[in-house]
């Protein structure tokens, strides 16, 4: 291990098939049945699948149609995000009993830094066990956990004994653990990177460790440095409580592909209201608006524009989105539209505005019909 780095004790807690488990808990009839939470079998996308469904090869982000093909008995349930949020809150409350250093990744995962914890318990393994037990007793759901010296290894480890299990990688086991790890399991290595690694003869952590920093940098650029460090057990990212979102987005897939911008504007208005609602909930605004267009042939196009002031209002978002929509001709009929707002005012670079931004901008607001 690198010197000059005090060893941390990090736990990664991951709820097992969270959305699907919540649905099964709330509706006992669904227990033990293959279940997919998502927008339905025609054009929807599975956002979570129960373990019963996973056995058939149903995965999240899979199209509803394919999921149904793989598992004909699959039951589709519409998502109830408010309910998931409510439960997620309860789970987080348990985390905060142990430490304030909680970094939620999503509704169903979080990193906890328990190096110093409120219970004074020196064993992260025991804390993880206790937390999982309490989640089961107080919330009624199972969770898995990974325990190790940094976020990266904790995250990989939490997948090891899933569902309803945990895995500790002690400091002395770290090098061996990483060396034997399949390259696909490295967090941050997706399908594309994995294929590239395979071509370079990298299949396990050991293979990766054998490569020089220069080689990895040449092949993978900036990420090369990350891979080089990470396989040596170095991951300096701290557990950041209340991690601020980098962007806020809303999108919609249509039941029929759209060909006319006029109809798209109608949809964009709805999407913009949803986005504005989310922005209001988080009390943030941003400068960069991106219009995401997925065509009927699944090719993706994004068009973005950066304004020199922060916006969060629906009319302003819609105004810019409209400009982006008409900026260029559509290449095909459109299956999905989305608007996202990045360059948020949470970054702390708000005061870096140049003087020419004094220009007043006024927008006539509309009733939200």
């Amino acid at each position, binding site marked *: 291990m690198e010197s000059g780095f005090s060893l941390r004790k990090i736990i990664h807690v991951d709820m097992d098939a969270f959305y699907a488990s919540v649905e099964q808990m709330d509706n006992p009839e669904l227990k033990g049945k293959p279940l997919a939470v998502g927008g339905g079998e025609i054009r929807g996308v599975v956002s979570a699948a129960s373990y019963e469904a996973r056995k058939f090869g149903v995965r999240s982000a899979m199209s509803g149609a394919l999921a149904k093909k793989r598992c004909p008995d699959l039951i589709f349930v519409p998502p109830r995000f408010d309910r998931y949020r409510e439960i997620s809150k309860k789970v987080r409350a348990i985390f905060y009993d142990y430490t304030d250093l909680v970094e939620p990744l999503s509704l169903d995962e979080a990193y906890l830094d328990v190096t110093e914890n409120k219970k004074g318990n020196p064993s992260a393994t025991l804390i993880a066990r206790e937390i999982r037990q309490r989640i089961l007793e107080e919330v009624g759901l199972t969770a898995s956990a990974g325990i190790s010296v940094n976020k990266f290894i904790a995250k990989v480890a939490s997948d090891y004994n899933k569902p309803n299990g945990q895995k500790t990688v002690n400091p002395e086991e770290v090098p061996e653990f990483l060396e034997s790890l399949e390259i696909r399991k490295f967090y941050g290595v997706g399908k594309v990177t994995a294929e590239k690694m395979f071509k370079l003869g990298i299949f396990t952590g050991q293979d990766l460790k054998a490569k020089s920093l220069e080689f990895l940098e040449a092949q993978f650029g900036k990420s090369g440095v990350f891979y080089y460090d990470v396989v040596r057990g170095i991951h300096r990212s701290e557990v950041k409580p209340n991690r601020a979102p980098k962007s806020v987005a809303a999108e919609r897939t249509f039941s029929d592909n759209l060909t006319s911008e*006029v109809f798209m504007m109608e949809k964009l208005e709805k999407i913009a209201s949803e986005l504005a609602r989310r922005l209001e909930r988080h009390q943030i605004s941003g400068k960069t608006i991106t219009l995401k267009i997925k065509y009927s042939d699944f090719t993706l196009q994004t068009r973005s524009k950066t304004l020199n*002031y922060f916006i969060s*209002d629906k*009319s*302003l978002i819609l105004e810019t989105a409209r400009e982006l929509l008409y900026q260029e001709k559509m290449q095909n009929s459109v299956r999905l539209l989305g608007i996202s707002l990045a360059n948020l005012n949470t970054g702390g670079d708000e005061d870096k505005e140049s003087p020419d931004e*004094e*220009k*007043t*901008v*006024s*927008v*006539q*607001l*509309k*009733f*939200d*019909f």
Partner: protein
Amino acid sequence: MKFIVSSSYLLKQLQILGGVINNSNTLPILDNFLFELSPGKLNVSASDLETTMSAVLDVDTDSDGSIAVPARLLLDTLKTFPEQPLTFVVEDNNTIEISSNHGKYALAYADGAEFPKAVELSDPSSTSMIGDVLATAIGKTIFATGNDDLRPVMSGVFFQFSQEGLTFVSTDAHKLVKYQRNDLEASQVAEFIMPKKPLNLLKGILAGSETEVTIEYNESNAKFSFENTELICRLIDGKYPNYEAVIPKENPNKLSIDRTQFLNSVRRVSIFSNKTTHQIRLKIAGAELNISAEDIDYSNKAEERLSCDYQGDDMQIGFNSRFLTEMLNNLNSDEVSLEMSLPNRAGILMPVDGLDEGEQITMLVMPVMLNN
């Protein structure tokens, strides 16, 4: 077929009906008045297919028949006559001959059967009100209707009838007017959207009139009958936006001010506003209202101060001066109140005085976001 009628009486009726006729018609027959004669009566109709208006005139005749007479030609001729009896005789050669004290005029006519038939209202519900009340309701709302072809429902006035009262609503998504009469009632709950054109015609005819207007309606058409006149029109199809949802309930900041003073200030200051946004800024602190505008492109700037009654937090809000002017202009009260919550929420403008018993007017205007 022959009838005798007073020239000014006929002209007056035809001028009213002529409002229905479009300047350019795809169907040439619509450039005509339909004359339907029966003993002692002449029924004249004009139509643009959407709206048909007809009036029954007392004339001296004992014949029957139906012909379509060119509207423009007839009106132009009638306008020039001093009051006198005119004799209309339908000749065999498809012309109608008019004899006056001055001479004879022949117009080609078409067969009355070619003229489109007005729809019959099947199974209508009905209510009635004084003509002037209807004209006022139209006048208070019609200016706030929209012109967006994509939202045709907003191009009309929304009529909401119930046992509790009659409500008329219009909006173009930027401003909204809700005009209520709680002193009137309808036999049945009904909602329909009236297009602008027939409403403008009705407003013109009925302003100041004490006659009773009967309104009959079903899902697709409405009929307004009064005195010797009937107007039937097609309703706008579609669902009216849920306007109640956009009326803010909590408005802690209440401004009350002399309407004429406010209107005059807004008008003056708006001359200096940006020519595309027409944006003016209201800054309210204590009992002082500061109205300002600027057009940076031309370095034009104006500012006025008015004293007012104000309860609430100091605030700044931007409005399109055109909307504000139109709305203030449409009210007759000496004093108005403007209720607000936040600079990005609608302001509610209401008259403080001068309302009839049972009359209620609520106007909403969305602000222009001030960005700096």
